[in-house]
């Protein structure tokens, strides 16, 4: 069972990371190629806190707060630049994060931080805790999507100029999206750090940002269920796909390409498509009657 438990823990943490990006990219339409940096901020914050004796549960809000704070700062950049410029700015944030952490001896520098204390709930307990948080975050995401705030996010994502004309305060909604998304990214980071118990700058590099991003995009930006499914599948992908060992990353890269080429809406697009066709063919049958 332990293997399944550890897999589920990883899946859960990935889902939290992906859902947090989904709030920024999916709901509010602001692309971020630097999401792993916020996960990293959370991981480093909570590790340093627990290593200095703070209880694990108390370190979580700390991680979320700091991550959120930096997220808001980066969010300000989304007020200055848009679209491709924002993509590259956030990419820059990702590279800058690893570049700076690497050189900080306080943060362990290149050696990273090892021996991060265990929360002490056993593997099963930790998994249950993570899954619980996933459920809460999923419910919160679904709620947010259908709330007035979600609709406003939609308007900003759709066309921010029009949104501002009809009186939406675009700037503050973008900042809220960044604040929420990065706070939960911090949570994902803290959970990751206390699961793996070793962190180094490379663990939160640009590749990780892309991994999280591909979960959201393959799942279908904005679709909570799609993102959860994609995060679950992609996070265990490297482990299931051991049997094609040498071709694993090749398959992964090709998959990204194929999904984008044939279904840019991601999984949720495929599902919607199939549903639509199912309804159509049923209607066709009825028509034949």
């Amino acid at each position, binding site marked *: 069972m332990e*293997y399944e438990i550890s897999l589920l823990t990883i899946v859960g943490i990935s889902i939290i990371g992906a859902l947090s990006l989904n709030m920024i990219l999916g709901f509010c339409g602001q692309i971020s190629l630097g999401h792993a940096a916020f996960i990293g901020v959370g991981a480093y914050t909570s590790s340093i806190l627990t290593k200095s004796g703070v209880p694990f549960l108390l370190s979580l809000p700390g991680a979320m707060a700091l991550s959120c704070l930096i997220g808001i700062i980066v969010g300000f950049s989304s007020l200055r630049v848009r679209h491709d410029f924002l993509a590259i700015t956030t990419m820059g944030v990702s590279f800058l994060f690893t570049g700076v952490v690497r050189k900080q001896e306080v943060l362990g520098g290149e050696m990273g931080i*090892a021996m991060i204390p265990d929360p002490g709930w056993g593997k099963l307990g930790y998994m249950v805790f993570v899954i619980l948080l996933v459920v809460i975050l999923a419910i919160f995401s679904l709620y947010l999507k259908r709330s007035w705030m979600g609709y406003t996010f939609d308007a900003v994502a759709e066309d921010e100029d029009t949104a501002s004309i009809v009186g939406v305060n675009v700037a503050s909604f973008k900042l809220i999206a960044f604040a929420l998304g990065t706070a939960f990214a911090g949570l994902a980071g803290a959970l990751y750090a206390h699961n*793996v118990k070793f962190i180094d700058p490379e663990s939160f590099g640009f590749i990780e940002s892309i991994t999280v991003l591909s979960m959201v995009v393959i799942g279908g930006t904005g679709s909570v269920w799609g993102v959860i499914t994609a995060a679950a599948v992609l996070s265990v992908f490297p*482990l299931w*796909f051991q049997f094609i060992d040498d071709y694993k*990353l090749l398959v992964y890269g090709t998959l990204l390409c194929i999904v984008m080429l044939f279904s840019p809406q991601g999984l949720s697009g495929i599902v919607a498509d199939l549903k639509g066709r199912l309804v159509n063919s049923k209607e066709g049958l009825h028509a034949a009657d």
Partner: protein
Amino acid sequence: MKIKSIISCLFSVFVTSCFALTLFAADTIKIGINVPLTGFAASDGKSALNGAKLAAEQVNDAGGVLGKMIELVVYDDQASPKHSVPIATKLIEKDKVVVGVSGSYSGASRAAAGVYQSAKVPYIAAYAIHPDITRAGEYVFRTSFVGEVQGRAGAKLVGQSLGKKKAVLITLNNDFGKSLAAGFKEKAGDFGVKILNEYQYSIKDRQFGAIVARVRADRPDVIYATGYFFTAGPLVSQLRAAGVTVPIIGQEGYDSDTFIKIAGKSAEGIIITTSLDRDSDDPEAKDFIMQFEKKFNHKVDMVAASAHTAVKVAAVAIAKAGSPDRKAIRDAIAKSEVPASTGIISFNALGEVIKDVQVQVVRDGDFRRHSIIHDPVLLAPPTK
């Protein structure tokens, strides 16, 4: 539309087939190994895996252990701690390996070490150098040097054997380079070596023009440059092309045939501290080099030798323990006295290896023996 549904169909078949696949194996004794087979560390992963495979094959040809064959269970961890943790759990839980071996880098090994320790399964890191790996607990061992130890050997080599007094450090900015440089700096003073300057570079750099220009202005007697073959090759050629002729001291990261291929003539005379002696009289090392080059048609390197050593230590310990009991095997590993391709392997209380440092020099396009540093006091690994 049709293409779309075919693709999504194929995709689902693909995903479900992954569940269905299980490997059936005969009654064997399993040794688990995590190596980076894809991604940026794939070249070291491949060498490590080949070394490990050879070791398993040799043990099996000699009749296996406890009357059974050894089976290597191999998983690709992409040198990432994120992947190595579930892999470690899978090896322990699903594959029921009796010993784990890491053929991977520090991050992945450090993260996996915790899992092995808490499951009380012995784990041997072949060449990862992070000092914290063995601190995970009494079940974790390492068959190669901690970075600091090898750095200290470098200081002795520079100050005593070569008699050079003014050094410039060119340090690779990762755990490998940093810990080597730390060891070098710690002992440099003791051997009368003055450090003029230290420059850092990142693992992705291949162009060192700025550093080279600066080093030339520093006029050192000797250069202590940490790196892997793919950074060291270009670095050494660029230093030589700029007219810097002083000795360059490298470490086990240089220890690959590809280094010599990249640096070409510039590689001549480069001295490195490493674990593998090409001119060894020791039958173990000689046999390993011969067999490896025959089997894989690729020259040996330090990584391959280290992984070979780690698997061999594991196999010998299983035989000595007399049963596949993980605790008994751990105790047997702790008391190891195993002749292997990288020397006679024994461990201190922390699980760090105690052995001599091999100094090799490049001559006529091959690594050759330069000297051996035997200094148990200087080379004493950390004990806690």
